[in-house]
């Protein structure tokens, strides 16, 4: 039996799965239900300056009949009175002392506001603070949220204010609405933040209603850019997470990973690229808190299968395998192979390769089933056919090295080796 508990800056939780700062964590009734379901911790929905929310608030991107591949929202921070939030946080900590209670904060842009807010929150007994430098809608118009996270100098200043007052661990949450998360991450670390979390949501328009001509979500005939999240953003989050884990400065602090995590497999991928804890929102909004059961169970089974006792044994393990393109081995070469016994003759590999890639698949007409085979000499080993094939392990990529030695692009050029001739 593997140990799936997490220790993040001394904040312990029975599993690494926290609910991200969002509607599922905005009041006692939800949070208690989440803890009862088994969640390891929560990041309480952002507290700060007074706001009021609009209706509607959410919209989604569906794909091939599956709902909510991507999700966006234009909801602001908590619009409930601060004292009620604080009272409820205190109660939740009392009832579930073994779970992580992090409170997300976004104070007005002055030192006193931050200091006052931190003092009040610490009085609840919460275990940590998360600074919301990421919210990409609404709050940015007031110079808050992503407006802070997009400017390393402002972020550094705010973190410095926070660190003057905070006596519990501080996590700075980064916005992805930048060309790189590293500059703001470095600024926050240099200003003393204990940890980073990423990503917040991505500015987006999920679609336009083709009857009303108004983009989603529709608020009385108008819309506004919303924050994009859900499974669609996972690849972007993983990339940004990697850059934090590979940077000399930011890699010094632990990271809480966020962005489209829905299953234990998603979670493990985030952990392999450096995340210690995982934050989930969209999946819980779509399916409810019960998804935690398989997340814990699947993680445990995977760790047992791989022989890991604790999560620390594999956190960050894949980071070193992501390199610059120039360091990739040009002698590595793979060629597709179609298993004719498994092939169902759908032709998707053929038309993908023919129209979209390298014309490396033979078509032999049959009625009704055509036969497809690889032209090995033409195959560049791009994976496209394997990716579009609907049958598992029907198309496999087999290694046919061009040479024994490791040969990168710089060396390739230095030797003046020949380029393609067609």
């Amino acid at each position, binding site marked *: 039996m593997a140990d799936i508990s997490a220790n993040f800056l001394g904040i312990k939780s029975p599993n690494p799965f926290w609910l991200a700062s969002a509607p599922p964590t905005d009041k006692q009734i939800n949070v208690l239900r989440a803890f009862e379901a088994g969640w390891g911790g929560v990041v309480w929905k952002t507290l700060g300056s007074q706001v009021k929310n609009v209706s509607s608030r959410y919209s989604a991107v569906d794909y*091939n*009949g*599956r709902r909510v591949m991507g999700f966006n929202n234009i909801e602001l921070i908590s619009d409930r009175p601060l004292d009620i939030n604080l009272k409820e946080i205190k109660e939740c900590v009392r009832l579930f002392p073994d779970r992580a209670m992090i409170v997300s904060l976004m104070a007005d842009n002055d030192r006193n506001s931050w200091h006052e807010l931190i003092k009040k929150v610490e009085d609840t007994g919460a275990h940590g603070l998360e600074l919301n430098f990421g919210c990409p809608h609404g709050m940015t118009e007031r110079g808050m949220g992503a407006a802070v996270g997009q400017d390393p100098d402002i972020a550094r200043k705010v973190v410095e204010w926070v660190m003057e007052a905070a006596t519990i661990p501080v996590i700075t949450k980064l916005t992805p609405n930048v060309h790189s998360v590293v500059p703001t991450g470095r600024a926050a670390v240099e200003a003393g933040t204990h940890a980073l979390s990423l990503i917040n949501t991505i500015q987006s328009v999920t679609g336009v209603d083709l009857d009303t001509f108004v983009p989603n979500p529709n608020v009385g005939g108008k819309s506004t850019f919303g924050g994009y999240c859900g499974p669609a953003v996972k690849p972007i989050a993983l990339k940004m997470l990697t850059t934090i884990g590979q940077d000399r400065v930011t890699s010094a602090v632990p990271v809480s990973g966020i962005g489209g995590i829905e299953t234990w497999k998603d979670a493990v991928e985030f952990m392999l690229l450096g995340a210690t804890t995982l934050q989930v929102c969209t999946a819980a909004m779509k399916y409810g808190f019960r998804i935690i059961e398989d997340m814990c169970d699947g993680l445990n089974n995977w760790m047992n299968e791989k022989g890991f006792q604790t999560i620390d044994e594999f956190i960050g393990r894949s980071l070193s395998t992501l390199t610059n393109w120039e360091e990739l081995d040009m002698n590595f070469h793979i060629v597709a192979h179609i298993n004719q016994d498994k092939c*169902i*003759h*759908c*032709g*998707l590999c*053929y*038309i993908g390769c023919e129209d979209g890639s390298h014309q490396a698949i033979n*078509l032999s*007409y049959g*009625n*009704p*089933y*055509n036969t497809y085979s690889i032209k090995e000499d033409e195959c560049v080993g791009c994976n496209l056919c394997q990716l579009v094939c*609907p*049958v598992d392990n029907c198309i496999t990529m087999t290694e046919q090295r061009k040479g024994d030695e490791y040969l990168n692009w710089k060396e390739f050029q230095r030797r003046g080796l020949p380029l393609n001739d067609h």
Partner: protein
Amino acid sequence: MTIRNNRLTADEYKEQFSDIRPPFETYDAALVEANRCLYCYDAPCTKSCPTGIDVPKFIKQITTENLRGSAYTILVSNIMGGGCAKVCPVEKLCEGACVYNLMEEEAIPIARLQRFATERAIQEQWPLFTRKPSTGKKVAVIGAGPSGLSCAHALSREGVDVTIYEKESKGGGLMTYGIAAYKVTPQFCQEEVDYITSIGGIEIVYNQELGKHISLDTLQKNYDAVYLAFGVGLARQLEIPGEQLHGVVDAISFIYDIRTKGYPAIPVGDQVAVIGMGMTAIDAATQAKRLGAKEVTLVYRRTQQEMSCTEAELNIAKLDGCKIVWLAAPKEIVGEDGKATQLVCNIVKLDVTGAMVATGEIITLAVDMVIKAAGQMPFEELVYSNQLDNNKGKVIIDGNSTTSIQGVFAGGDCVNGGKEVVDAVQAGKDSAKAILQYLF
């Protein structure tokens, strides 16, 4: 044991003859299946459709909510795509070729999706096709069945004025008169005919039979070309003693009566034997059962390997509670007071070459009704009397749908001896192409 009609209540009839393959109730339900489609390249389903409907394309168009485009994709290849969605033996055509079968997964329900895409177009008479201005050319078509309608529509689109002569009082041919009512309703058949003729330039003259009310000579004089699509129709006789007894009917007229007289009017026996194992035999057996027959037995002189109905059809009969006797060749129908009482069959076996060999054993079924569904015969006399080259009554055509008489074309069941509706539609398309080449 008696043969009588009016065995069920109105509600029971309604239930017995309700749609055997109900449509998708909602768009979302259709989307679940449409989204499973892999969108195969050079798709096996399309290649297995006699009319070559671009199946992946029309299914993709359902998923993009382009229902109008989807209906057009179907109907441009098969103007009776709505009806075919209900009556095609898809398990041996498009759905049978679906690549999911090779994954041991359920095939895409192409027919149901096709019905979903075409139903509104037909009900609401979407004007998906436009007719070119009249060219002044006139073509006569014999028979308003699938082949005749398909040919007429294709010709009309090119500006040809078409007159269809139909011996019955309604169009649709076997769709209207020869198919089980739980597959396609007379109302739908009417809507489909109306939809096809809504393009304009097609006039159907009903109750006009070739050789009786009109002659080929006259048509040749009055029209620039003639298309023969009069189908087949005469039930094959068993040539055994007792065929003339009361209670012995042929499946074609049995089904025709169901389609024209209403369910309560159709008499069935308590114990019915149906001879044959084609689609028509199944339609007759299941409908006899659904009309209230106590016991229905399908009698076939060969095995399941040789039967011409599909397994899906056989399953309908089995689920309806019909019994099946394989390897029994009808020998004699025995009667009392002129009424059939027993069907006597030789038990046979098949030798290595597949030929039937008598075993010497006999099986006797107690019956009060025998429905003969041993195939249909071409209209041999009509064909001979018009001096058309033929093969045992089946009109012979060349590669261009042309008969031995210049300007006279033929296609569908009257040529092939009786195939599926979808084959007849394709024959109509092919013939229209040949006629257009001949005319212009």
